[in-house]
C-alpha cells in the first residue's frame, strides 16, 4: 500500500567510528507507508544508519530529510517528537513495572498529572490481543519470557501515534506464531500510512513482508530493489558479493569411535533449570544440543563449564571424575567454552585484541612470570592471519569490530589453548553469512583433527550440516538423540516440541 511520495530521504550520510568507516556516503529514499527492509551482513552499517535516523548518533556528513524537512538536531527526544520510534536489537525494558506500563511508558493517558490506569490497562490488553498473545497487562515484566518481552517492546513502538517505525531484528527471539502476528500488524500499520524500516537477517520474512529492500555492504549502499520478483539467492548474492554454494557443506556420515567418552556428564540437575541430564562426548565428534527457549540448553552449557552451580551431577574427563566443576579446572583439563553472548562475556571489549588473545594463555606466553610482549604479539598475529580476522592492528579494541570478527576473535581465544574439547554456545549467532561459513569450516577442521565439540545451537541448519549426533532437550530433560542420517529438521523439531514418543 505504498504511494510514491518520498517520506524519508537519506543523502550522502557517512559515519566513522575511530578508523572504522561504518557508513560511507549512503543515500536512499523511503516512500510513505511502505515497509522497507534494510539487508546486509553484520558490520554492513544497518544499525548505525537506523541509529542516525532515530537521532542516537550524529552523522559526520550528509543529511536526513523527513517529510520534506531536514533533521538538524540528532537527539532521540527530538526524533520521538517527530514521530519516529525504534525497537532495538537489545531489549530496553523496565523489569519491575507491569507489561502495560512497559507498553505505554511515557505520558499517555494522563490528565492533570494522574495516569488513567483503567484506560491504560484496557488499551494494553487490546494491543496484546491484536498480537494474539495471552499476556496479562498487569503482570510484572520480569515474569515474561524473552519472546513475550520482545512482543511488549514492539507494541510500545507501534501502539503510539507514530509516522516512522524502525525495527532492528525484531524477530530474532520470536517464535513463528508471534512472527506471523508481527507481520500481520506491520501490514496493518503500513496500510494506515505509517512507514516502516525493517532490519532482519531472515530473508523469507523480508520476502513475505516488505515492499522494497535496500542492501548495504561494508558501509556502502549497494542497491534498492522491489521485493516482488526477487529471489532469496539474488538477495544473498548482492549482500555478500558472492554465491551461496559454499554456505552449507554437505554433511557426510563420519565414523566416530564411540568407545570411551572424552567428556561425560552424569545426572546433571539444578532446581528449575535442568533435570537429570547425562551425556557423553567422544573423540573427534561434534555433538549438537538443541532445545527451544526455556528447555534448559543455556543452563546446561553453563553448568557443564562450572559457570552455574549444580544441585546434582558429576563430570568425568576420560573416565576421571572432576572433584569440583569449575572453569579453571576444566581449562587445565583442556576443555574450553565459547560464550553465547559475546557482548556480555567472552571478550574484553575495552582491552586490545592482543590482551584478549593473551587472557586464556597467560602461562604459555610468559617467561619467569612476566608476560613477553613479543610472544603475545606473535601469538596474536598468528591467529589473526589463520582466522582472517579483520582488525586495524593488534592493539585495536574488540568493541570496534563487527560481530563476525568479534566471534572469530573469541573463537581464537578459546583455540589458543589447544583444547581437546570445546563447548560452543550459539557459535554463529548474529553474524553474517560469510563469517558463519568460516566458523563452520573451522569447527569441521577441528573435529577432523580429533577435537571433540559440544555445540549448543538453536539453528537447525547449522546442527544438521555439522553435527554427528544431536541431543534434544525439552522441558529441562533429554527428549531425543539422533545419529547420522536420522538428524533431520523434522525429527529434531518433533522431539523438541514433544510430538515424538
Amino acid at each position, binding site marked *: 500500500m505504498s504511494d510514491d511520495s518520498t517520506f524519508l530521504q537519506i543523502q550522502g550520510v557517512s559515519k566513522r567510528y575511530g*578508523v572504522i568507516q561504518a557508513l560511507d556516503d549512503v543515500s536512499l529514499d523511503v516512500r510513505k507507508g511502505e515497509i522497507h527492509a534494510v539487508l546486509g551482513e553484520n558490520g554492513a552499517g544497518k544499525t548505525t544508519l537506523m541509529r542516525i535516523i532515530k537521532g542516537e548518533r550524529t552523522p559526520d556528513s550528509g543529511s536526513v530529510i523527513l517529510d520534506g524537512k531536514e533533521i538538524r538536531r540528532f537527539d532521540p527526544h527530538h526524533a520521538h517528537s517527530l514521530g519516529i520510534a525504534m525497537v532495538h536489537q537489545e531489549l530496553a525494558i523496565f523489569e519491575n513495572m507491569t507489561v502495560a506500563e512497559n507498553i505505554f511508558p511515557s505520558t499517555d493517558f494522563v490528565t492533570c498529572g494522574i495516569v488513567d490506569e483503567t484506560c491504560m490497562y484496557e488499551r494494553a490488553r487490546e494491543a496484546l490481543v491484536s498480537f494474539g498473545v495471552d499476556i496479562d497487562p498487569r503482570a510484572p515484566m520480569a515474569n515474561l519470557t524473552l519472546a513475550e518481552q520482545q512482543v511488549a517492546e514492539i507494541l510500545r513502538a507501534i501502539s503510539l501515534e507514530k509516522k516512522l517505525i524502525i525495527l532492528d531484528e525484531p524477530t530474532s527471539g520470536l517464535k513463528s506464531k508471534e512472527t506471523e502476528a508481527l507481520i500481520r500488524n506491520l501490514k496493518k500499520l503500513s496500510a494506515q500510512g505509517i512507514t516502516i524500516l525493517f532490519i532482519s537477517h531472515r530473508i523469507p520474512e523480508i520476502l513475505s513482508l516488505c515492499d522494497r529492500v535496500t542492501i548495504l555492504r561494508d558501509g556502502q549502499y549497494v542497491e534498492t530493489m522491489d521485493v516482488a520478483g526477487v529471489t532469496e539467492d539474488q538477495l544473498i548474492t548482492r549482500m555478500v558479493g558472492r554465491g551461496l554454494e559454499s554456505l552449507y557443506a554437505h554433511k557426510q556420515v563420519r565414523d566416530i569411535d564411540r568407545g570411551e567418552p572424552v567428556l561425560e556428564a552424569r545426572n546433571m540437575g539444578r532446581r528449575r533449570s535442568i533435570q537429570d541430564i547425562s551425556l557423553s562426548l567422544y573423540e573427534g565428534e561434534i555433538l549438537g544440543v538443541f532445545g527451544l527457549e526455556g528447555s534448559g540448553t543455556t543452563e546446561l552449557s553453563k553448568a557443564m*563449564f562450572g*559457570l552455574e552451580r549444580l544441585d546434582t551431577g558429576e563430570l568425568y574427563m576420560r573416565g576421571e571424575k572432576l572433584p569440583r566443576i569449575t*572453569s*579453571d579446572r*576444566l*581449562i*587445565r583439563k583442556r576443555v574450553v*567454552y565459547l*560464550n553465547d553472548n559475546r*557482548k*556480555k*562475556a*567472552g*571478550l*574484553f*571489549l*575495552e*582491552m586490545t585484541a592482543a*590482551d584478549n588473545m*593473551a*587472557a*586464556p594463555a*597467560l*602461562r604459555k*606466553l*610468559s617467561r619467569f*612470570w*612476566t*608476560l613477553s610482549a613479543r610472544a603475545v604479539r606473535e601469538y596474536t*598475529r598468528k591467529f*589473526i*592471519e589463520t582466522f*582472517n*580476522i*579483520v*582488525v*586495524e*592492528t*593488534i*592493539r585495536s579494541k574488540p*568493541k570496534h569490530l563487527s560481530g563476525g570478527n568479534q566471534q572469530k576473535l573469541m573463537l581464537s*581465544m578459546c583455540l589458543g589453548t589447544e583444547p581437546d574439547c570445546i563447548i560452543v554456545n550459539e557459535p554463529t549467532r548474529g553474524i553474517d553469512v560469510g563469517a558463519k561459513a568460516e566458523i563452520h569450516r573451522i569447527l569441521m577442521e577441528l573435529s577432523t583433527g580429533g577435537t571433540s565439540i559440544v555445540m549448543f545451537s538453536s539453528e537447525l541448519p547449522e546442527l544438521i550440516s555439522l553435527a554427528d549426533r544431536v541431543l534434544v532437550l525439552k522441558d529441562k530433560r533429554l527428549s531425543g538423540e539422533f545419529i547420522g542420517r536420522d538428524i533431520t529438521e523434522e525429527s529434531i523439531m518433533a522431539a523438541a516440541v514433544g510430538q515424538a514418543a
Partner: protein
Amino acid sequence: MEKSSNKLWLRDVNWSAFSLLVVTIVLCVFLDRKFDTFWTYQNMYSIVQEISMECFAIFGFTFLMIMGEIDLSVGAVYAFSGYFVAYLMAFGMPVWPAIVCAILACALIGVVNGTLVVRFRLNSLMMTIGMMLLMLGLRDVLSELMGGSTLKSSYRAIARVEIGDVRVTIIAMIAIILVLEFLLRKSAAFKKIYYVGENLTSATIYGIRAGRIKVLTFIASSVGAGIGGILATSHVSAANVTTGDKLEFKMVTAAILGGCSLFGGKGSIANSALALLFLGIVVDGMVKYDVEVLIQQLVIGIILIIAVYVDTLMNKEKIEY
C-alpha cells in the same frame, strides 16, 4: 588481516595520567612563583614524607578499584592499627611482635571483607562502609582503654629511622611504587587484575580465578592500610583520633584522579601515587594561602566531584552497554 596505521601511538598515550602530570607541574610552577618557601628541599621533603605513610594504603586500594571493587574501610583500619600496636605494647609486648600482631589483625579484616564480597556477593561499597564503622568503634574502645597515654619510645622510633638523611618510609614508598608498577605492567599474575576488572565473567571463562584474586587484594588493601597506620601513629607522640580521619575519601579522590574508574578495568599504581602527591601539594598550597581548614575540605570535595565527572565522561560507552 592487520591493516597498518601510523597514528596509533596517540591512542596509546594515557591521557588522564598525562594531564594530571601537566596540572601538577603547572601547580608547582605557580606556587613557586608565589611563595619562596614552596620549592625548597625542606618543604618538598615534608610533603613527600606526609604522603609516604598514606601511600601504603593506596596500593591495595588501587588494585581493588581496577577490579571494580572498593575498600572504604582503609581509613578506619589505618586508624585502628596504630592504636592496636600501642595497646599491645601497653601490656608489655615488645614493639616488633606487637606490629606483627597488628598486621595479622589487619589481614584478618581483609579476609572478612574479601570473603563476604566474593562468597556472599555483598556490595563492596556497603560491606566496607560497615567494616569502617566497626573498626572505628574498635578504635574508640582501644582509645578508652588507654586513656591518652603516650607511645613507648621504641615504637616512636620506627618511623624516624633514616637512611642517609631520608626517612625510611619515603624510601620504602618509592621502592614499592617501582616494584608494583613494574609487576602491574609486566607480570602475568598482576595482568589478571585488569582482566577481572574489565569483565568478570569473561575472566572466569578463560580460567582466571577471580574470587581468589579479589580476596587476596582485599587482604593487601587492609594490610597496606594497617602498615601505613602503624607508621603514621609512630610518627606522632600519642595515638589520636585524627590519624586516618577521612583517609578513605582521600584514597578515592587520588585513585580516580590517577585514572582509576568506578567501572573497573583501569588504573595504575604510579598514577594513583602521583595523584596523592598532587593532593598533598594542593593542601600545602592552601595552607600557604592561609585557607581555612573547612574551606580546604570543600576544595578536596570539589576535586573529587570533578574527577568522578571526568571518569563518567570517559566511560560513557561502557555505561551505555
